């Protein structure tokens, strides 16, 4: 009976740790999911699935993390689920990212209408990037992950991630400039 009480106490401790992880990273997982699938409904599903899967494998992940942060692990789960989401349903976002959701919270406080056009153009251009580059940018700019975290989430080396980000930004800049059309000299 003592053994089962220890097991229960261990389980309670694990649940509490998971609860903290969930609270700390719900916004990250949701933001990532949202920018991947392009709408709130599917982002909610993806977020829910991510945390359910994380919960199932949490004990092992914690054991193997060696004290490192678990955010890249969470995002990697979301990344894999998003890939399955597209494969299973044979679809990509049918419309561009709903900018109402994106440009609402922090940006309305800026109150600059011309900025909104720029930001919308950038968002539309992000969607034209190859998957790996788009994901790296989402992790970097929406989630504020550093190169090491992104590398862990994508299963790449730090160096490869650095180059990936650089190329993603350069390509995006090119797409945005092209979309803006020729500028006056």
């Amino acid at each position, binding site marked *: 009976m003592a*053994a*089962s009480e220890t*097991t*229960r106490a261990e*389980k309670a401790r694990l*649940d509490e740790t*998971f*609860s903290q992880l*969930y609270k700390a990273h*719900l*916004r*990250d997982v*949701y*933001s990532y999911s*949202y*920018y991947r699938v392009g709408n*709130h*409904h599917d*982002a*909610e599903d993806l*977020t*829910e*699935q991510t*945390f*359910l*899967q994380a*919960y199932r494998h949490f004990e092992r992940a914690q054991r193997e993390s060696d004290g490192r942060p678990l955010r890249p692990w969470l995002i990697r789960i979301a990344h894999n689920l998003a890939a399955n989401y597209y494969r299973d349903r044979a679809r990509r976002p049918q419309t561009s990212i709903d900018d109402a*959701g*994106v*440009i609402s*919270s*922090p*940006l309305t406080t*800026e109150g600059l209408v011309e*900025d909104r056009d*720029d*930001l*919308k153009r*950038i*968002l539309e251009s*992000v969607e034209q990037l190859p998957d790996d580059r788009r994901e790296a*940018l*989402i992790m970097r*700019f*929406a*989630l504020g992950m*550093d*190169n090491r975290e992104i590398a862990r989430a994508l299963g790449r080396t730090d160096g490869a991630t*650095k*180059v990936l*980000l*650089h190329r993603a*930004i*350069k390509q*995006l*800049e090119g797409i*945005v400039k092209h979309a803006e059309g020729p500028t006056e000299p």
Partner: protein
Amino acid sequence: MSEHPNELVAGHQFSDFESLLKRALSPVEPPKELEARLELTFGSLVDMAAEELEAWELSSMRDPRNWVRPVAAAAVGSGAAIGLVLVRTQRRRHKRRNESHGAVDLLSRTLRDFAREARRVADDVF
């Protein structure tokens, strides 16, 4: 913007374009109802029941006096699972109503969604 990849991350100094990109990709707050639903999911007794059953030592199951708890846990877990399926099915009601052609079609869509969510809950939790 720097041409060299190494300078991209040095000190996290963003160019004008990167600053715009950071604002365009601003974090998105999850809806409150999602938080509530996830709390419900994790707080649900489904997991507790599953854990109870998993943790239960097989040897103790030889004694009929120990059968009460796992059976009760399974019963509670089943109730929570059904609750979860209902919550998830309920979420899609507006979409179903908009897409349906008449009451029969709506009922048929509701049953299909219920079956789909039941399969998902079974996959997720068990």
